[in-house]
């Protein structure tokens, strides 16, 4: 009864390469993959594959649980290094804007359209209701958002809210950042609420439309609709688009929950969720741009025609960007 211990020989033959991999992974864990010299970095994948094959063999021939446990843990650690996030932070950000974001927008075309539809519907209803009876205005627009823009305000004071600000440039930085933080919160809510089957997202879209419609009706009543349009369009084309994108992202989530594809709900949520998340991050970046436009450009440029031009150019820019950027790049998606 003196059978040679195969697993013992197996271990003796391969132990050196396991130790080498362990050493490399240890360095990479401590100081990052970049700290490895080129030739060692090149050895990492092949050592990792060798360790994986050792693990498969060990599982079937070895009863030494320490060896199997060690290989499991070693392979897992090497796996993190080999299959962890592939690119560095700035590369990913670049890739994000060049390819992922516009691609996510294109793939979510219909949900975005639906979100846009509900906002437009809200806008129309808000506009018509406030036009018919200004009292509706108070029900739609929260007091802190309205400020001194209420049906009780005079035409002159309304006009001032549109063209004021050029002399108070100092305070704009704060204002811009405040608006940005506020808006991104709303947008992210619209996105995250997609989890609740999308109903709150649609409500949020509709409600934002109502507020907008109420504003328009208010200024229209004083003959200031054209000027308000200019005031809004500077940042609004970017901001409203961003909020609609977030709403679209929320609806993508909702669709994945309600109508899963051939996979399980969780799987289809994971597949679509990544694209929806991309949409939301991109929209936050757009809101950053909108905040800057709103805080600086709108307050410094007070000519309505120029405001329209800027707003129109921004819109044209976004549409071109979403339509054409990153086309032909395969995202490597499943």
């Amino acid at each position: 009864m003196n059978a040679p211990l195969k697993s013992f020989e197996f271990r003796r033959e391969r132990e050196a390469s396991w130790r080498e991999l362990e050493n490399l992974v240890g360095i990479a864990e401590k100081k990052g993959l970049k700290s490895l010299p080129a030739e060692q970095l090149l050895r990492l994948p092949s050592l990792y594959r060798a360790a994986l094959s050792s693990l498969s063999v060990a599982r079937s021939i070895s009863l030494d649980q320490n060896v199997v446990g060690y290989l499991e843990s070693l392979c897992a650690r090497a796996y993190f290094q080999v299959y962890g996030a592939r690119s560095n932070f700035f590369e990913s950000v670049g890739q994000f804007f060049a390819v992922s974001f516009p691609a996510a927008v294109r793939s979510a075309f219909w949900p975005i359209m639906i979100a846009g539809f509900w906002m437009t519907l809200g806008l129309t209803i808000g506009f018509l209701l406030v036009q018919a009876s200004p009292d509706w205005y108070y029900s739609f627009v929260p007091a802190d958002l309205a400020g001194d823009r209420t049906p009780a305000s005079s035409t002159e004071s309304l006009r001032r809210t549109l063209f004021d600000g050029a002399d108070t440039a100092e305070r704009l930085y704060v204002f811009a950042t405040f608006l940005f933080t506020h808006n991104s919160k709303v947008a992210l809510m619209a996105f995250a609420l997609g989890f609740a089957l999308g109903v709150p997202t649609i409500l949020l879209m509709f409600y934002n439309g109502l507020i907008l419609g109420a504003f328009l009706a208010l200024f229209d009543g004083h003959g200031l609709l054209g000027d308000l349009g200019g005031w809004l369009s500077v940042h609004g084309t970017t901001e409203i688009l961003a909020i609609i994108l977030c709403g679209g992202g929320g609806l993508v989530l909702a669709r994945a929950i309600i109508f899963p594809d051939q996979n399980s709900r969780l799987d289809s949520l994971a597949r679509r969720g990544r694209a929806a998340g991309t949409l939301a991050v991109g929209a936050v970046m757009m809101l950053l741009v909108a905040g800057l436009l709103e805080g600086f450009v709108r307050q410094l440029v007070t000519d309505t025609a120029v405001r329209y031009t800027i707003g129109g150019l921004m819109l044209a820019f976004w549409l071109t960007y979403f339509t054409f950027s990153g086309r032909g790049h395969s995202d490597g998606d499943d």
Partner: protein
Amino acid sequence: MATTSTRVTPNQPAPAARPKGERRIVTPEGVPLTFQLAERGERAAAVLIDLVIMLVALGAVVLSFVFVSWQLGFSEIIIGVTLLLFFLIRTFYFVYFELRWQGATPGKRALGLRVIDRKGGYLRPDAVFARNILREVELFLPLTLLLAGPEQGSSAWVNLLTLGWLSVFILLPFFNKDRLRAGDVIAGTWVVSAPKTLLLSDVAAGAKAKQGPNQTAAPEFPFSRSQLEIYGIYELQTLEDVLRQKGPQTQETLREVTLRVQRKIGWTGEEKVDYRRFLEAFYAALRAHLESRLLFGERRENKHDRKGPPGSADGPGATGS
């Protein structure tokens, strides 16, 4: 809920009931790897560490803000920059580290946690973005509400609704077996703990060395085939654990185990043996035996596993313990 495809290859029998919280992914190379899901408490601790680090970073920003405005005079632009830095830290802290450190943030690293793809592929940047964007609603919004109190002017039922909604997010990890938070759900990720296991010396190596290079010499402790057929893999690995133990009680444990094994296998050799040497020899012989059976496709899980080798009709005479 476990969504991994547990591909069972012929030489890899389906494991019996897996321990709770163990998940298996199949790497792109086709080899299944087992991971232990991180405990909810560990994850909470990791987030807490990260929050403290962020708080320190924010504190540094505020301090430098104070310093700059003290040096250069107060200016509104400094507030703007400060607010922007706040935003950047809040939004990109997690994204930055999870991309840079292969799915770990400082807090996760301190606790040995990692984010992995549930399907076993690359942890993709968009997954990192997606799982962290939801922190806005899962983490930062509740925190703001908690610290700043409800927004002024909002009615009570709105606050209640917000609270209810937020708790759905916060409590989500408690309501699924995979301990996914909303961000993990939409990004298709798991958070697993990855402890390091050290490679210890082979227990059988001791027996080999003592046996000497001359394989043909009669072994110190001869075991018959039927003696080796009493135990299974479970007992072998328990014996491995015993032999790896270190501590004051070891000698006593070894004595007890030796006596038990001897009684069980009907040991007729010399009575006075060195316990460790006897057990190491028995371990080596048993492992060699079981591994050679393994090569013929027979896996004897434990002593109650009665599918004996085809040759011996009566099988192992295991009767209770």
